[in-house]
C-alpha cells in the first residue's frame, strides 16, 4: 500500500481543513481571520484546559486516585457527582457561546463580526450542549446522588449500568468538544431538521458529529432511566411506600419513565438520519420517496417529553427546598404527586405543537393545542401548592430559596407565554421567532437550571461534608435571575416584532435596543457563573469552618439528612424502617433520631469496574471513527465495547463485603460525635456554629 493510500484509510476524510485556523491561513481576509481567531481561541482554551488537568494530575500524582476512587467507582454518589461536574464544564462552554452570539446580535444590524457558518455552529452547539450535555447530565447527576439516599437504598439497582450510562454521556460530550479542534460542527440547530442536514445540503462532517453525539447521549439516558425506575420500584427501604416517598423521588420516577419511552424516538430519528447520510437511504430526503415531515414527527415525539424530563426533577428539587427552608410539611403532597403523573402522561400527547405550521388540518392542531393547555392545569396546581407551603411557614431566604422564589415568579410568566404558543393560530405568528426562543429559555433557565443550582447548594454539604459559601452564592443567584430577565425578556419583544431565531444579522434598526439589553443580560449571566466559580473556590478554601459532619445542616426532612456528611459508601449503616412521610423530621420531633441500631450486618457493596470507562472510550472511538470515515477506528471501538460487555459476563467476584464490625465502628463513632455536637437553631445555619446538628424548626423558641 502506498503511503497516501495508507493515510487515506487511516484518516478517512480528515485533513488540514478541519483545523479551526486553517481557513484564515489559507484564505486570509478580515472575516476569516476574526472567525478563525475566535474558533482557534476556543479550541485553544479547551486544549489548554486539558493540558493543565493532565499536568495537575501528574504533578500531584492523582492518576491512581482518579482511576480508583472516581472513574471505576460504581458508587451512585460519586457517579452523580461526576455527572454534575460534566454538566458544569459543558455549561461553561455553552454560556461562552451564548455570550458570543448575544454580542454578535448586539452589533448585528446589517452585519457584525461572525460569519454565518460560525454563527450556525454556535447556535447548534449551544443548543445541543445545553440540552444533552448540560441539562441532562445535571439532572441525571442530582437524581443519582439524591434519590437512592431518599428512598433509603444503598445504591441504584444496577451500579455497573450506571457507570456505563455516565460513560456514554461523557463520550457524547467529548465528541462535541472534539468538534472544536477538528471542525466543523453541524449548523442545523439542536433539532437537526432534514433535509437541511442531509448529505445533499450539508455534505461536511457537521451533522455527523451532531448525530453521534446525540445518539450516545440518548443511549446513555435510556439506560439511566431504566436504572432509576427499577431502583425506585425495587430498592425502597422497608415501609417506604410510594406515597411516603419524598416528592423528588416521584419526579425522579416520572422522569425515568419518560426517559425509557421518549428516548427511543430520538435514537430512531438520529439513526435514520445516519442511514440516509451514510448509506443513501431515503427516510427524510426530498427525493426518492423520503419524507422530512416524518423526522419532525419523530424528533418531537422525543422532544416534548424531553421538556418534562428536564423540568420535572427541578419541580422535585423545589418541593424539597421550599418545604425544608419553610420548616413545614409540603402542602398538597398527594396533589403534587398526582400532578407530576398527569404531566408525565400528558407530555406524550402534545408533540404536534412543535410543528403547528407544517400544514396539518385545523382540528388536528386544535386537539394537540388543547392537550398542551391541559398540562397547564397540573402545573398551575403545583405552583400554588408551593405557595401554600410557604404559607404559615418560617421561610429562610437561603440560596436555594432565592432560586425557588425566582423560579416561582418567572416560571409562571414562561407558562403564560407557553399557553400563547399552545394556540395554533397564535403559533402561526410566533413560531420560529425569538418569542419562542424567549419562551423555552424562560421555562428551562428558571425551571431547570435554577432548580439544579438550588439542588447543588442544597445537597452540596451532603456530598462533600461542608457548606457552600453564602455571599457568593447569593450574588450568583441574584445575578442569574436579573441576568435572565435582561437577556430574555427583550427576546419576547423581538419575537413579537417578527425577528426570526437563528439569524446572524438583521436589517431592522428597531431591533437594536432589544439586542443591546439582551447583551447586558448575557454579561450579567456570565458574571453569575463567575460568582459560582468564586463560591466554589472560597468554600473549598474555608472548608474547615464550614464542615457539617453531623449531616443535617438545614433541618432536613427526608432520610438523606439522617446520615453523616459526607455520606459513607454504604449510605445507611442499617436500612431504615419508614413509617411516615418526612421520616427524619418525625424522628427528630419524637426524639427517635440518632439512635443506635440493635444490630449490624455485613454489607455487600459493588466492586469497582473498568467496564464503564472502557465502554466510554469505545463509544467515543466508534463515533469519532464514523464521523471522519475512519472505518478501522469505528470497528475497533465497536468491538472493544462488545468485548468489554461479553467479558463482564465472566466476572463473578463483583461484591466487596464490608464486615459488620467495620460498619459498627464507623457508625457508633459518628453517633457519639453527633451527641457531642451542640444543636443549633435555624438562624445560625449559615454560621460556623452549624455542625450539622439541627434543632427542628418546630421546636425552636421564637
Amino acid at each position, binding site marked *: 500500500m502506498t503511503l497516501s493510500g495508507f493515510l487515506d484509510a487511516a484518516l478517512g476524510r480528515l485533513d488540514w481543513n478541519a483545523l479551526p485556523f486553517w481557513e484564515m491561513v489559507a484564505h486570509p481576509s478580515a472575516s476569516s481571520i476574526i472567525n478563525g481567531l475566535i474558533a482557534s481561541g476556543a479550541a485553544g482554551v479547551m486544549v489548554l484546559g486539558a493540558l493543565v488537568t493532565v499536568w495537575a494530575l501528574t504533578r500531584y500524582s492523582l492518576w491512581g486516585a482518579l482511576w480508583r476512587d472516581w472513574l471505576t467507582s460504581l458508587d451512585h454518589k460519586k457517579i452523580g457527582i461526576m455527572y454534575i461536574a460534566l454538566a458544569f464544564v459543558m455549561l461553561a462552554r455553552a454560556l461562552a457561546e451564548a455570550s458570543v452570539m448575544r454580542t454578535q446580535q448586539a452589533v448585528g444590524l446589517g452585519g457584525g463580526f461572525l460569519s*454565518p457558518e460560525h454563527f*450556525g455552529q454556535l447556535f447548534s452547539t449551544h443548543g445541543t450542549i445545553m440540552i444533552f450535555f448540560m441539562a441532562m447530565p445535571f439532572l441525571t447527576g442530582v437524581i443519582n446522588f439524591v434519590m437512592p439516599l431518599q428512598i433509603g437504598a444503598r445504591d441504584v439497582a444496577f451500579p455497573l449500568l450506571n457507570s456505563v450510562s455516565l460513560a456514554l454521556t461523557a463520550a457524547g460530550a467529548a465528541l462535541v468538544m472534539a468538534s472544536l479542534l477538528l471542525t466543523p460542527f453541524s*449548523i*442545523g*440547530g439542536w433539532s437537526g*431538521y432534514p433535509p*437541511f442536514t*442531509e*448529505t*445533499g*445540503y450539508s*455534505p461536511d462532517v457537521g451533522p455527523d458529529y451532531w448525530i453521534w453525539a446525540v445518539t450516545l447521549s440518548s443511549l446513555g439516558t435510556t439506560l439511566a432511566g431504566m436504572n432509576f425506575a427499577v431502583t425506585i420500584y425495587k430498592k425502597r427501604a422497608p415501609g417506604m411506600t410510594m406515597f411516603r416517598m419524598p416528592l423528588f423521588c416521584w419526579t425522579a420516577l416520572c422522569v425515568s419513565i419518560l426517559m425509557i419511552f421518549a428516548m427511543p424516538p430520538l435514537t430512531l430519528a438520529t439513526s435514520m438520519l445516519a442511514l440516509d447520510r451514510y448509506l443513501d437511504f431515503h427516510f427524510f430526503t*426530498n427525493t426518492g420517496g423520503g419524507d*422530512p*415531515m416524518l423526522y419532525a414527527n419523530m424528533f418531537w415525539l422525543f422532544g416534548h417529553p424531553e421538556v418534562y424530563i428536564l423540568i420535572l426533577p427541578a419541580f422535585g428539587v423545589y418541593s424539597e427546598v421550599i418545604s425544608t427552608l419553610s420548616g*413545614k*410539611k409540603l*402542602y*398538597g403532597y*398527594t*396533589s403534587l404527586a398526582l400532578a407530576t403523573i398527569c404531566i408525565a402522561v400528558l407530555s406524550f400527547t402534545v408533540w404536534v405543537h412543535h*410543528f403547528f*405550521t407544517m*400544514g396539518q*388540518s*385545523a*382540528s388536528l392542531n*386544535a386537539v394537540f393545542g*388543547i392537550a398542551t*393547555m391541559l398540562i397547564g392545569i397540573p402545573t*398551575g*396546581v403545583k405552583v*400554588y401548592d408551593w*405557595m401554600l407551603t410557604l404559607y*404559615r*411557614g*418560617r*421561610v429562610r*431566604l437561603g440560596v436555594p430559596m432565592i432560586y425557588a*422564589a425566582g423560579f416561582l415568579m418567572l416560571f409562571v410568566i414562561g*407558562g*403564560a407565554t407557553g399557553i*400563547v404558543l399552545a*394556540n395554533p*393560530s*397564535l403559533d*402561526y*405568528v410566533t*413560531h*420560529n421567532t425569538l418569542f419562542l426562543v424567549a419562551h423555552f429559555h424562560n421555562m428551562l433557565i428558571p425551571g431547570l437550571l435554577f432548580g439544579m443550582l438550588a439542588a447543588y447548594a442544597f445537597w452540596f454539604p451532603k456530598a462533600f461534608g461542608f457548606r457552600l459559601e453564602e455571599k457568593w452564592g447569593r450574588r450568583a443567584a441574584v445575578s442569574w435571575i436579573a441576568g435572565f430577565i435582561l437577556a430574555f425578556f427583550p427576546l*419576547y419583544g423581538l419575537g*413579537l*416584532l*417578527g425577528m*426570526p431565531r*437563528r439569524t*446572524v444579522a438583521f*436589517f431592522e434598526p428597531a431591533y437594536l435596543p432589544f439586542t443591546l439589553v439582551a447583551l447586558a443580560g448575557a454579561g450579567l449571566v456570565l458574571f453569575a457563573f463567575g460568582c459560582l466559580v468564586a463560591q466554589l473556590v472560597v468554600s473549598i478554601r474555608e472548608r474547615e469552618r464550614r464542615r457539617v459532619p453531623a449531616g443535617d445542616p438545614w433541618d432536613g426532612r427526608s432520610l438523606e439528612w439522617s446520615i453523616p456528611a459526607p455520606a459513607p459508601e454504604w449510605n445507611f449503616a442499617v436500612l431504615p424502617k419508614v413509617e411516615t412521610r418526612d421520616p427524619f423530621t418525625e424522628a427528630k420531633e419524637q426524639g427517635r433520631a440518632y439512635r443506635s441500631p440493635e444490630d449490624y450486618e455485613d454489607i455487600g457493596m459493588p466492586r469497582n469496574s473498568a467496564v464503564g470507562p472502557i465502554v466510554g472510550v469505545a463509544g467515543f472511538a466508534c463515533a469519532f471513527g464514523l464521523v471522519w470515515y475512519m472505518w478501522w477506528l469505528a470497528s475497533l471501538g465497536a468491538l472493544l465495547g462488545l468485548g468489554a460487555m461479553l467479558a463482564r459476563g465472566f466476572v463473578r467476584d463483583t461484591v466487596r463485603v464490608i464486615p459488620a464490625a467495620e460498619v459498627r465502628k464507623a457508625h457508633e463513632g459518628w453517633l457519639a460525635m453527633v451527641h457531642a455536637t451542640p444543636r443549633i437553631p435555624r438562624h445560625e445555619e449559615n454560621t460556623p456554629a452549624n455542625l450539622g446538628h439541627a434543632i427542628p*424548626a*418546630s421546636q425552636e423558641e421564637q
Partner: protein
Amino acid sequence: MPPLAAFLLLSGCGVETFLDPQGPVAAQQRTHFWLVTALMALVVLPVLTLTPWLIWRYRDRGGADYEPRWAFSRAWEVALWGGPALVVAVLAALLWINATRLDPYAPLVSDADPLRVQAVGYDWKWLFLYPDLGIASVDLLAFPAARPLEIELTSATVMQSFFVPALGSQIYAMGGMSTWLHLGADAPGRFGGENSQYNGKGFHMQKFEAVAMDDEAFEAWARHAATAPALDAAALEALGREGVASDLARALDRQGGEILFGGLPDDLFARVMSETAKAPMAAHDRADGQ
C-alpha cells in the same frame, strides 16, 4: 410586561407585526393574543404578587403564625384544580374557534375573487408565480389590497417557512409538497416578509417585500412585469443556485436589482415540485460544486 414594551415600541417605529395588524388574519390574531394574555394574567398576577408577600410575611423570626404540620385543605384543593381548569376550559374554547377560523388552508371571507399566487422557496430567495397573469417576481409579492391572497407554497430546496408578520399566519414550504396559505391586507402598504426557518448561511438575507396596491397600481405593475424577459431554462437554473436575490440579479444581468419575469412555462410550480422530489443527484451535484 415585555409584550407591552414591544407594543409601545411598535407604535413608534413602524415595524408592522400582528400586534399592529395590516390584514384581517393578523387582526384576529391580535385580539386572540390579548384575550389569552388577559386570561393568563388571572393565574399569573396572584403568583407575582403573593410570592414576595408570602416570603416576607412568613420570614423566619418574623413572628407570623407558624403551622408546621398544616399540609392539606379540601377547599384549597378544589380551588387549585378547579381554577386553572376553568381558565383552561375558556382558553380551549377560544383555541378551537380560532384554530378553525384561522386555518391557513381556509379561504378568507370576501366578496372579491382571491388572487392566486404560487410561492417557491429557493436558497435564499422567494419566487412568486402568478399563474393567471403569466408573470413572476423574485422577493416581491405584489397584490391588490382589495383582493385576498391564495398562496400555494413549495420549496425547491430544504424546509422553509413563509411569513409576513404584519399580515398574519406563516406556513412551511417543503420540497416535493405543496401547502396553502390565505392572507389579505386592509389597505395598500409595504410589509416585510421573510423565511423564518433556518436554511443555511444566506438565511438572514432571505427577506422579501409584500406590497399591497390599489387595483390600478397592481394592474400597472402586472403590465410592467409582463414586459420583462420570460422565465426560461437559464433563469430557472440561476434561481436554483445558492445565493440571495442580488446574486441572482447579477447572474441574470438585471439592472436596479428588480427581478421580474414576463412569461411562465406551463405548470412550472408542479414541475418544481416533482423535480425536487425526484432528481436525487441534483442536490449532491450542487453541494459538491460549491
